[in-house]
């Protein structure tokens, strides 16, 4: 029962990530500018890190970053490390944040998109021994984080529907 309950939610979350990735990679760059390709990956990751508290969270992050990795040259490993970093920070501060207010979601997503980018840049620097990833993508990150932040309340609403629980199933989700 527990595993089915969770797999069902993971399925819909991964479908949301895949559909958004297909939309943003196929239509967005050709309609707007090829340099502007936002992704909902970080927003989904933030929601999961905030919602789930159990031992499986790092594996769930790994799973979603592997799905996302199939759409980008970044691959799963860099994204998972950045995701784990963000997850650890959120687990420390989640009790201090009123996450269900729209403006908090916008600010939260904006700030954590940058934290995600800093962690990613740090590991890219370790790998390539060059800072070019960081300084060449500052402008892109600003545009993408603003876009993600603006979409965050809507995405969180969808995610809340997917991960909706009652009193009986709440413990199940909290312990994932």
């Amino acid at each position, binding site marked *: 029962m527990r595993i089915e309950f969770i797999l069902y939610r993971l399925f819909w979350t991964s479908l949301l990530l895949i559909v958004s990735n297909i939309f943003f990679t*196929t239509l967005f760059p050709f309609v707007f500018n090829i*340099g502007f390709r936002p992704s909902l990956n970080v927003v989904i990751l933030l929601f999961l890190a905030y919602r789930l508290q159990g031992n499986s969270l*790092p594996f769930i992050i790994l799973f979603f970053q592997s799905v996302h990795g199939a*759409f980008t*040259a970044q691959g799963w490993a860099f994204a998972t490390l950045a995701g784990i970093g963000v997850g650890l920070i959120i687990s420390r501060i989640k009790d201090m944040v009123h996450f269900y207010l729209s403006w908090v979601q916008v600010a939260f997503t904006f700030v954590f998109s940058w934290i995600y980018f800093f962690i990613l840049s740090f590991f890219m620097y370790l790998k390539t021994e060059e800072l070019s990833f960081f300084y060449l993508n500052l402008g*892109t990150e600003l545009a993408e984080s603003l876009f993600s932040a603006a979409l965050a309340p809507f995405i969180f609403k969808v995610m809340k529907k997917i991960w909706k629980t009652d009193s009986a199933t709440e413990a199940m989700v909290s312990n994932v």
Partner: protein
Amino acid sequence: MKFVTNPEIRPKIYSYLFVIFLSLYGVAKKDFVSDEGTFFEQLVMATTSPVQDLLGGARIKSVNFFSFYLSLIHTSEENLSLKHELSLMEEKLATFEELKLENQRLKSLLEFGEEENLKKVLAQVISWDASGKFRLLRINKGKKDGVVLKATVVSSKGLIGHIYRITDHYADILTILDPNNRVDSLVQRTRSHGIVEGGAKQLLSMKYVTRTEEVKVNDLIITSGLSNIYPKGIIIGHIERLERENYGITQYIEVRPNVDFQRLEEVIVLRLENNEEKQREFLDLDESQKAL
């Protein structure tokens, strides 16, 4: 170390540590020249790419439909000018054919190496990378169509990149706009060597060209052929800006790619055909690089 002894937190720490070490291993193994991809990534790519292909195809058809009717407005005028251009081109072509034959004769006299026999696979661009920070393109041709890893990809205007990741029916191209893609190149006029890599705002930067080289704005940049990926002589772009400081040993060169990536729809994948000796050389070179 009190938290480690806490039996409630211990599994959580172990699961975090496991995923962190696994990811660090993944980072260490990561190669930005080509990527075999994990089984899971290949699976996701194989199942989602047909949808991207379908959407990409619909987008191109709708764009072509509108642009076709709009272009009809000035067709007769354009037709006349194109006819004039065609006659000029035919004249030029005849001259080039002569030069080609002469070149072949002279090359055989000098016992030059055999010309590379390149197979061409035409493919359609279906999507871009999901992260704006990487410049990857997905095309609708894969292993089953004769595309191989690290094959050069061009368009009629010039170099696009090389095959980075591949499945049976789809492939990803690491474009020259990506800073992780480094192309050994030449300034055509002066034969000055340098490395071209992706820069900001869809421009490229050419590095390691010494200050004493007299390169100019608008000089053409081509591939040098000094790598195991790109054949020699493919156009990369033109010098847009250069800075020669009073100090240092190199100059800063900004290159505008010849290919308009914003409007890129079709690409050509080039692969060496039946040149086993060359393939073996490349494999040996790859192995020696890995060993280093």
